[in-house]
């Protein structure tokens, strides 16, 4: 694996529901023609990585106030959002010396259970893969311009801040 080479990065915004496992398998929308045998890493020209960490975040069924969530609206800043995701992924990948990073994020109106975010990291060691994935997730929650509005009881409420790491 190529810790010395700059990491391969893929950043994707999805205006429609996306299937995180299909993206990882290299068969997702825009993932090219058919499944790549090496999945998303193979699609980047990487051999099967020794270590791969993924995180998938999905829309909850309840709003912050406790009511039933009808939908989650995700606003972004076209252009800056993609750029920031790229900058954050690049910095995090370099800091941990990982081989590849995939970030996919939903925009627009999403329903409970739908995927919101996917972060995948391929590396030669499990520590860097896991740490890079965790840090990049926190970074994009605070440093990439996305805004959530929860729709509950027909009323939309902007979410100011993130759910705690827990």
């Amino acid at each position, binding site marked *: 694996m190529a810790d010395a080479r700059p990491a391969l990065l893929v950043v994707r915004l999805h205006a429609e529901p996306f299937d995180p496992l299909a993206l990882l398998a290299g068969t997702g929308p825009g993932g090219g023609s058919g499944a790549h045998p090496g999945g998303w890493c193979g699609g980047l020209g990487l051999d099967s990585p020794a270590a791969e960490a993924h995180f998938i975040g999905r829309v909850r069924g309840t709003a912050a106030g406790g009511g039933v969530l009808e939908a989650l609206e995700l*606003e972004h800043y076209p252009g800056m959002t993609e*750029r920031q995701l790229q900058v954050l992924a690049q910095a995090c990948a370099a800091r941990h010396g990982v081989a590849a990073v995939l970030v996919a994020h939903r925009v627009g109106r999403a329903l409970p259970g739908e995927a919101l975010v996917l972060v995948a990291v391929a590396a030669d060691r499990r520590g860097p893969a896991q740490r890079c994935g965790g840090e990049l997730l926190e970074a994009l929650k605070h440093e990439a*311009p996305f*805004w*959530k509005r929860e729709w509950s009881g027909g009323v939309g409420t902007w979410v*100011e801040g993130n759910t705690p790491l827990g």
Partner: protein
Amino acid sequence: MSVAGTGLTVQVRLFASLRERAGWDARRIELAAGTTPEGLWRQLGLGDGAIPATVRVAVNQAFADPHQPLAPGDELAFLPPISGG
């Protein structure tokens, strides 16, 4: 709100709660040389005093200093608290 003849035109963009409160999402503004994002925030009536600590400024789609004077053609955005992921 515009200062004729300075030739300094910037694009201002608002998002999410800020956009809704102001009632607009993008405006082309002509303004005096040396104007900063902080100055424009007051000038546009977006808030009473300084830019609140929770609001961030982006210039040309990168986070920027609210006290740095704008240049002609800049795209300035005021960003309410981010909640991604």
